[in-house]
């Protein structure tokens, strides 16, 4: 499916998705409540067939936290980027997609570890890189560590 057709298809599925201009990828901002249902549709529908989540990242945009999903269909050769935003810095929660793309399990643990975004229904949401008992999430913009960080 080419970009225009895919754009219409996605907007047909989620009318309140916000389209974002991007040269490389077709990008949509999705309401957090709808990401899981949309992900199931994207994976199962024959004309979409997004069978490969090739990147899942967390971003701290200061005003909100963002989870970015890079999707690809290995059979139909089209790509799509979804973004989900949460303004709650303390308990920001996004539904997990690791029951749909199993690779998301470790990606989501990494995002939780470094950015502090929680994933609802994740089977094993622990820190991935840092030790248990680490306080804070070091890749956040407001992270402070007086002992270890030497400010330039």
């Amino acid at each position, binding site marked *: 499916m080419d970009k225009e057709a895919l754009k219409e298809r996605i907007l047909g599925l989620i009318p309140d998705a916000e389209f974002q201009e991007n040269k490389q990828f077709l990008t949509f901002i999705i309401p957090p409540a709808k990401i899981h249902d949309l992900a199931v549709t994207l994976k199962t529908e024959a004309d979409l067939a997004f069978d490969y989540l090739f990147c899942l990242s967390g971003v701290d945009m200061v005003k909100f936290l963002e989870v970015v999903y890079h999707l690809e269909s290995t059979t139909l050769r089209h790509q799509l980027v979804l973004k989900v935003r949460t303004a709650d810095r303390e308990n920001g929660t996004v539904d997990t997609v690791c029951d749909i793309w199993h690779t998301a399990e470790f990606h989501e643990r990494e995002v939780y570890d470094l950015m502090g975004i929680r994933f609802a229904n994740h089977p094993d949401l622990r820190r991935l*890189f*840092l*030790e248990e008992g680490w306080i804070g999430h*070091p890749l956040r913009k407001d*992270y402070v*560590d007086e002992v*270890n*960080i*030497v*400010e*330039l």
Partner: protein
Amino acid sequence: MGIKNIKETEFRDNETLDLFKQSGGNILLTTLDAVMDWGRSNSIWPLTFATSCCGIEMMATGASRHDFSRFGIEVYRASPRQADMIVVAGTIVNKMAPVLKRLYDQMSDPKYVIAMGACAVSGGPFFYNTYHVIRGVDHVIPVDVYVPGCPPRPEALLYGIMQLQRKIKLESLSNPRKTVELI
């Protein structure tokens, strides 16, 4: 620039090593020392240990073009118990530090450490604004030779290894830690 361009006199000029030479000792021991150090310095077996991009340069140093087995750094050992030297090639993060310390402790004496590259020397590019990097591997284990660079070219590592060999050649059976005390 290459290691060939360094003049012999410059290579030999090293104040610290001149300090080591003021050791003395009797004829039998010094001869024995000379034989032993000659053997030891020409068969330094390194531990297979690399944590980032310096490791690639270290592998290149071992590969056919630079081939450090010419200097007797013959064979990478996968076990610290068989290794004489550890080249700390790369960034050491807080989580890696205890592992490195244990590997060093498991190596049998005499053992030597080369800190290769900016990260191992001082933390390098990760000195500022990081929460998890050891700023210099000498906070964890004692270092014999520092090789600066990011990453150092294989010639630089070879130069560092040759300096280590010179250091080993000044060791003495009667007082194996003399080099340390003199510093």
